[in-house]
């Protein structure tokens, strides 16, 4: 008995300390951004053990703030959420662009991200993938949903779902004919606009079935017809389209919201070597294409076209006509204070009856 206990003790202890000693690579990212096949391939190539933690923009920032930039070797925030956070909490380290094979990236996108994540003389991120938020519509069951206003339309009562997050507020502001990004500079104006948006959303609350937090769950409810109109990312709509031709992603009339997700290295990353290795690995055309084929997100890598499935390539051209592409609203960097305003309003919407 005593021997067994001793053995168990030794085992747990050895596990605990070996786990810290090994060459692990800690990735803080969105669900789907690190497909299992790619992780396995990367591990085989480099010998690192990859540990993935799933998160979203807000939690990424909160987590890195709490750890003061430790615990993870690489994070994947959206490009608009980096500079203000970096100014305030210093949770990232400057990106060493010399370690990055810049030939792998679409140059304009790399430059845009560099510009948007610049704080003082340093830039903090490189692009990974991009996409848009818009509407996923079951055209058979909900004809006529072409703009964000469908989300607050009586017509679709009880069949609507969206995230209770900042993109929804911004989308509704655009739908009301305003440009919230133009008001980023003046918090009071911005607050006024957002108050109006919040009032609309509160008024339209009976129309919402639920506020989704779970991407897969949303897709499942769209599949089953519980939800027919949703605001979500384009890739979700395309995934569903592959199964059911009635469902598709629609770029809304007042403009899809364009985002770019990036790689940024936390301030106290232990294994920056692995971080750079991962970036250079996953941006290789064949790997980036594999990711796009599986998750349907558009990648920031060049030369992927020949590896892409035809269906995936078609998705984009089907949902985006020439002028809808021009109409994509790209997120500019979020200034401080803005998020506090939005946070309170989101709470208010959630609590309202």
């Amino acid at each position, binding site marked *: 008995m005593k021997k067994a206990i001793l053995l168990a003790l030794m085992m*747990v202890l050895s*596990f*605990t300390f070996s*786990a810290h000693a090994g060459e692990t690579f*800690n990735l*803080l990212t969105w*669900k789907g951004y690190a*497909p*299992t*096949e790619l992780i396995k391939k990367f591990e085989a190539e480099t010998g690192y053990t990859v*540990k*993935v*933690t*799933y*998160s979203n923009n807000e939690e990424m920032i909160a*987590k890195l703030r*709490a*750890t*003061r930039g*430790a*615990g*993870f070797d690489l994070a994947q925030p959206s490009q608009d959420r980096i500079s203000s956070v970096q100014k305030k909490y210093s949770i990232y380290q400057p990106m060493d662009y010399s370690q990055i094979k810049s030939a792998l990236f679409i140059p304009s996108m790399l430059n845009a991200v560099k510009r948007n994540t610049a704080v003082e003389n340093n830039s903090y991120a490189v692009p990974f993938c991009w996409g848009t938020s818009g509407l996923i519509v079951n055209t058979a069951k909900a004809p006529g949903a072409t703009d964000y206003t469908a989300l607050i339309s009586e017509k679709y009562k009880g069949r609507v779902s969206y995230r209770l997050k900042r993109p929804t507020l911004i989308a509704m502001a655009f739908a009301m004919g305003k440009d919230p990004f133009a008001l980023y500079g003046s918090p009071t104006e911005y607050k006024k606009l957002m108050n109006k948006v919040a009032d609309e959303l509160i008024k339209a609350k009976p129309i919402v079935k639920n506020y989704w*937090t*779970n*991407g*897969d*769950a949303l897709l*499942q409810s769209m599949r089953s017809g519980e939800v027919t109109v949703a605001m979500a990312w384009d890739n979700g709509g395309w995934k569903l389209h592959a199964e059911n031709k009635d469902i598709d992603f629609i770029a809304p009339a007042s403009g899809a919201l364009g985002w770019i997700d990036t790689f940024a290295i936390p301030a*106290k990353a232990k294994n920056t070597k692995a971080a750079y290795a991962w970036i250079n690995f996953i941006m290789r055309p064949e790997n980036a294409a594999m990711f796009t084929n*599986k998750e349907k997100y558009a990648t920031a890598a060049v030369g992927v076209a020949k590896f892409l499935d035809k269906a995936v390539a078609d998705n984009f051209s089907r949902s985006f006509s020439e002028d809808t592409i021009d109409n994509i609203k790209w997120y500019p960097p979020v200034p401080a204070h803005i998020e506090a305003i939005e946070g309170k309003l989101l709470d208010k919407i959630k609590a309202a009856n």
Partner: protein
Amino acid sequence: MIRSLPNPRWYKSGYSIFVACFFIFLFAPLLVTCVLAFNNSNFPSLPWYGATLDWFFANTPDRVGIFHDANNLRSIMTSIQTAFFVSILSVTVGTCAAFLFEQEDFRFKQQLYFIMLAPLVIPGVILGISLLLASNTAGMYFEDSFGLDVPLFRPGFWLVVVGQFSFITTFVTLLISARLKKFDRTLEEAALNLGATRFEVIWHITLRFLRPAIVSGLAVSFLMSFENFNTTLFLVGSEPTLPINLYLQVRDGSTPVINAISLLLMLGTSVFIAINLLASKKSAES
């Protein structure tokens, strides 16, 4: 009304039906979870597409069974490690606390006892954020004044251990105190009388008497740690424990793998409880 009283039939059968309903209520969600772990569908819901063991053993790009799911397996390991350290720490300190409050007398004992009970009424979330804030304050202080980066002072494995320890110890203390109360102190006096030192007395007599309570303290703290969510949520770093990991999956997309994990979890806990029961029965007999 009670066993020794004659009861009318309607009363007896009505009562039995109520109790039966209660147990159905208790087990329905668990049963459904277990059954759907075997459904050959990519989603944890009906209709039934036939039985499969994919969610345990599969290893394909579409379906990864729990035994090949590195992410979940790692979080199970993390949970075991956390629970291991938490139970050892809290039983050690809890035993000290039990001795302190049961056998020693000192000023401010009442006040200290009251503080010891406080974690019972502090919501877990609050405990989590206050520890997060305090560790952050301490971490900043050490960094700014000494340039030291102390891993303990930021969310991560050890902060989770510390956070869970901080309230589980209260439960362990109460558990061990309850047994220590029943201890006949004349036994200690007898041992002292026979020439033992205080340390020897505690080691040979009191601790041996406390053994069943210590064992069940270990078990209880292990299980409490294993299933804790509220406190852990704020303290977890790059190594999520199983409940946190499951939460992220339930929230961000779920496959029947979660059902499979739940099933294993129930099996594991049942075995754990059974062993614990047998052990306590054995020690009660001896």
